[in-house]
């Protein structure tokens, strides 16, 4: 079990005055049996009043508006999350060859997670990956899914800027490169084409340095904090997580924020405003071990606190619509 303190700051700077800004954010970590969201708060500058609701995928959404003219907008989401050790999934070894018999039933139950989407069109190039993964696996559905994740990890280069936030898998497939968002999308495409329901997961990847007091500070491919991966529904065991960026299943370092059909359903920040000004976006995500009951920095159930809390900062600068 690990406890994290997360600070996710999104900042828009506009070249000129804008007004009547309406925003919708999905920043609240999921609270369920394998992850507890102990506290969450959201602040904006300029200040605003907000409302919240849960969307069709069960995600918490916060909406707020700022009417007067402003030249910058900062959205700060702060949360404390407890990551539990996930139970080891049990597979009864359903054969990949049996999967086709379940296609209709799975489509009936999970149409949203098997149908093609804007980011994840069912391109023919996905079949080649699917066949290679089927060969590499052990003939079971679970084996196929894990092999797909490995294969994407091996074949694709992690290159920041190779794609952009609105890229469909087409861009990444043709370049053989991309970022976590692309790899998660490709993963969805490959398994969906086989009839398996799969959903996009947005969240954080807590760097090793913060996740374990002993580990040295090291870069983790996939960015320091904001991350994306996939969950696939196996008819014989339910939803399992896969991180094709790392090529392995997600663990205690993964903090889930939202589920969706693709990135479009889970964009952390989305908004519209009045004004003709251009904008620049910057995102900072700080992760540090949360304080324990005595107010000390605390990482895991391990009682010895780390000597100094590392603070990891990521800053990206990219032009975008008011969407991150």
């Amino acid at each position: 079990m690990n406890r994290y303190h997360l600070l996710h700051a999104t900042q828009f700077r506009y070249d000129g005055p804008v007004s009547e800004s309406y925003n919708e954010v999905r920043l609240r970590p999921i609270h369920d049996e394998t992850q507890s969201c102990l506290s969450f708060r959201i602040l904006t500058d300029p200040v605003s009043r907000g409302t919240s609701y849960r969307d069709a995928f069960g995600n918490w959404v916060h909406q707020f508006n700022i009417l007067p003219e402003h030249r910058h907008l900062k959205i700060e989401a702060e949360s404390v999350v407890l990551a539990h050790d996930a139970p080891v999934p049990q597979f009864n070894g359903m054969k990949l060859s049996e999967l086709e018999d379940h296609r209709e039933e799975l489509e009936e139950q999970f149409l949203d997670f098997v149908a093609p989407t804007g980011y994840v069109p069912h391109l023919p190039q996905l079949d080649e990956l699917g066949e290679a993964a089927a060969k590499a696996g052990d003939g079971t559905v679970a084996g196929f899914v894990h092999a797909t994740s490995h294969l994407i990890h091996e074949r694709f280069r992690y290159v920041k800027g190779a794609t952009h936030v609105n890229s469909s898998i087409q861009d990444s497939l043709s370049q053989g490169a991309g970022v976590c968002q692309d790899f998660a999308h490709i993963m969805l495409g490959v398994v969906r084409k086989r009839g398996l329901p799969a959903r996009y997961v947005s969240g954080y990847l807590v760097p090793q340095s913060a996740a374990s007091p002993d580990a040295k500070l090291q870069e983790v491919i996939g960015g320091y904090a904001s991350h994306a991966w996939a969950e696939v529904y196996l008819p014989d065991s339910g939803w399992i997580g896969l991180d094709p960026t790392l090529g392995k299943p997600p663990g205690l370092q993964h903090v889930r924020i939202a589920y969706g059909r693709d990135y479009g359903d889970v964009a952390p920040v989305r908004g519209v405003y009045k004004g003709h000004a251009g904008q620049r976006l910057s995102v900072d995500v700080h992760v540090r071990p949360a304080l324990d009951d005595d107010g000390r920095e605390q990482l895991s159930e391990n009682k010895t606190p780390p000597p100094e809390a590392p603070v990891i900062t990521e800053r990206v600068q990219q032009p975008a619509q008011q969407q991150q």
Partner: protein
Amino acid sequence: MPLQGLFGDYQVGSFYDEMFAAPDQPRPHYAKIFEKLASMVPSQFEERRQHADLAFLLQGITFTVYSDGRGTERLFPFDLIPRIIPHSEWQRIESGLAQRVVALNLFLQDVYGKQRIFADRKIPRSLVYSCKHFLREVIGIEVPRGIHTHICGIDLIRDSKTGEYCVLEDNVRTPSGISYVLENRLVMMRTFPDAFQAYEVLPVNHYPAELSRILRSLSPRGGDDAQIVLLTPGIYNSAYFEHSFLAQQMGIELVEGRDLIVDGGIVYMKTIHGLQRVDVIYRRVDDDFLDSLTFRPDSVLGVPGLMGAYRAGNVALANAVGNGVADDKAIYAYVPAFIRYYLGEDPILRSVDTYLCSKKEDLNYVLGHLPELVVKAVGESGGYGMLMGPTADRERLEEFGRRVKADPRNYIAQPVLPLSRVPSYDPALGTIAGRHVDLRPYCLYDGEKVTIVPGGLTRVALQQGSLVVNSSQGGGSKDTWVLFGED
């Protein structure tokens, strides 16, 4: 009685003729109007027709055809010969429509709520989820008083042999046309006052008051001083005349998106006295354009943040958002099942046989019988995106066949329906001839009972032989009389 005068060349034909039971034998409820018309000489009739046209023109009763470059507004052609429905016939229609409206409302409550119907396997979940107009953004929203289908304009047609009324489309989004019903009656009373002396015709003019009452009852703040507005996309919308007409009739503000603003989940109207809170919006803007934060980000017709206010229960919208799923032409085929499932009743009104191209056996049938069928895109309305098999040339049939094969879920097919005919004046011929009609009654639902103004809009395909009654495709309309008695 041999046909003469304006009826000189009248052919009853092989269709169900609403006025004539046989070539020279008017049905009892049409007898008096038939005598009146038969006694007129063409020039007398033509004179009254011109009076009627002038009345429409002077009052600016118009509509817009989007695909026509010739100009924005056009007169909606009006045919002076009324369509008459005896009382008992109307009662059956009324109870059938009310049943349908309540079942559709329960279906919408269910698919955006508990989704009981999927668990009970009365309709495939995947079919509903694949509807273009099924909005995931609406799931979980509790709409005021549980009403989704405040206003429905259900299209009816009559069986060519028996004259039985069948439902063709439900139109539970933003059906238009009621203003023509009201105006047609006024113009008719002015140009043909003598015709009304012979009949007891049920009035239609209480529609705005009834709609206003329902809108008021939705106010989240309760009380009689609810601020109600009609949200229009603006003057370029095909139904702008109707929007301004209804707002004026109900005494409510006619607003565009830019006149409203949301702050902290509350909707306000910008007025010269400052912001005024809005409780109920009769919106004539499509779902996609309603809120640029939730739906199309490029929309300037709606109000950003509106869905948040709606979700929080701070404003009522009529009709509810997401109703388009019930208008999907594939879902249409399941409405009789909804009536049985939600109400435990047998449908009073028949539906038209429908082939769902998403089903393999239906698809094969449709592809093999294109020239006999009407093929429709499931998410379209107003006669757009449709193939009329019998009148299409080979090239068009082949092109449509390809479209259907490429995206079967997007199409349904129905047999060609030889719509019933009502005598109508053909200005080109200078005589009266049979023209095909349908009927769109307007149903208002307040959560307890369904109120339907007697009759509705009779749309008529004015071109000889045409079966397409849509105003966008050259149709006109008639005054529709529901009688107090039988004749």
